[in-house]
């Protein structure tokens, strides 16, 4: 029944695409990064649905169709293998995996992850005492490659809080405020143990490692308040180590900046 197989395959692919493209399981998109990420997610979800339903369908079909009748003590067909079939199901996953790999590489590039950072020779950390020099940084994802940031914030993570310092205006705060649509660069260092900076609505995460400053850039594009979550076990109060990022439109951000700027002594 080749036409039957064909129909089943087409049906499966359509179903996979339908489910994958329509599924809505991720939080609100609040950064330039997020739609790109969600596109990758939908593609992976589509392929995954096809594979999962296909394999499970085949399994259940076999279990029903080839179940043993009571009193039947015979053996099944003595087939020990089929080289061409085996080549086919080596080749198909290989092609799928290759496609997924190339595609996710492309996504990664669009997110700016492959952008050459100041120095990405294997593992150069700067001395812990000098986090601000910016010569050698380890990268998280940067949204637009090769551009300089509109706003730079120094982040210090410690048990169990994030501290944000704005060099522009000399502001120190426990809550991150950023302007909508502008590129923000976080220069992050940890005082004690490894922490991680995660904003689910931005789809970004980067470990903050003592002794090795890391950088994370993003462009938020949806005003609102979103959680900042520590994602790396950092001690008893790890679950409570969270704060918020507030995305303002430009005017509101300027207001916030002016209001909080410390007068020059």
């Amino acid at each position, binding site marked *: 029944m080749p036409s039957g197989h064909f129909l089943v395959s087409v049906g499966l692919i359509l179903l996979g695409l339908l489910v994958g493209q329509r599924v809505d399981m991720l939080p609100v998109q609040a950064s330039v990064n997020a739609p790109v990420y969600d596109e990758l997610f939908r593609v992976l979800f589509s392929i995954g649905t096809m594979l999962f339903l296909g394999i499970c369908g085949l399994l259940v079909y076999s279990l029903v169709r080839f179940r043993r009748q009571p009193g039947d003590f015979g053996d099944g067909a003595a087939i020990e293998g089929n080289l061409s079939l085996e080549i086919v199901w080596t080749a198909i996953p290989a092609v799928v995996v290759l496609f997924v790999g190339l595609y996710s590489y492309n996504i990664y590039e669009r997110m700016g992850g492959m952008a050459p950072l100041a120095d990405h020779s*294997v*593992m*150069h*950390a700067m*001395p812990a005492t000098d986090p601000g020099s910016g010569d050698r940084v380890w990268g998280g994802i940067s949204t637009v490659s090769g551009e300089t940031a509109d706003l730079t914030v120094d982040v210090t993570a410690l048990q169990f809080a994030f501290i944000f310092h704005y060099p522009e205006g000399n502001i120190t705060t426990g809550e991150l405020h950023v302007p909508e649509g502008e590129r923000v660069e976080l220069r992050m260092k940890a005082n004690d143990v490894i922490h991680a900076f995660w904003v689910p609505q931005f789809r970004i995460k980067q470990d903050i490692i003592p002794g090795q400053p890391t950088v994370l850039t993003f462009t938020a594009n949806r005003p609102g308040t979103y959680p900042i979550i520590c994602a790396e076990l950092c001690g008893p109060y790890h679950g409570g180590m969270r704060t918020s990022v507030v995305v303002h439109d430009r005017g509101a951000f300027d207001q916030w900046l002016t209001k909080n700027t410390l007068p020059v002594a």
Partner: protein
Amino acid sequence: MFGLVLFLVGDGMTFAGLFAAYLTFRAVNPLPSGGVYDLELLLPTINTALLVISSFTFHRAARQLRQGSGFGCRLWLLITAALGAAFLASQMLEYFKLPFGLTANLFASTFYVLTGFHGLHVTLGVLMILIVWWQARAGGSINRESHFGLEAAELYWHFVDGIWVVLFGIIYLL
């Protein structure tokens, strides 16, 4: 014997892990001021020579046994053990002469852990040689016909020597 080879492969992986850690530390983490990678080369070179020679003397001991000379075998075993002991003594001497302690800096720590772990192997090896030496006495369990213990100890000893040569190259010369 095959089991021993597998064990040595595993043991070698432990060293490989430590070497990898050492090389990464060295590439990534600058030492605080005052820390240096350069070490005095005289004693370690003598040490290398001692161990390399001891491999040959052990081989000689095994050959003597196969040729039927129990006495020759035991003599060469003793020489090997003495060379191993001399290595350990000289290593201790080096430790005392070094200007830094275990916790001085990253290099010092890695240096002591690597050489210490290797020294532990040499110590075990010397003990093994002495046991084999005892078993190779007239009427002992090791003789011309049955010498698995001797061969196993020899393989182990060559392994420990080989590791030292790598270690010497990576830590002292590099």
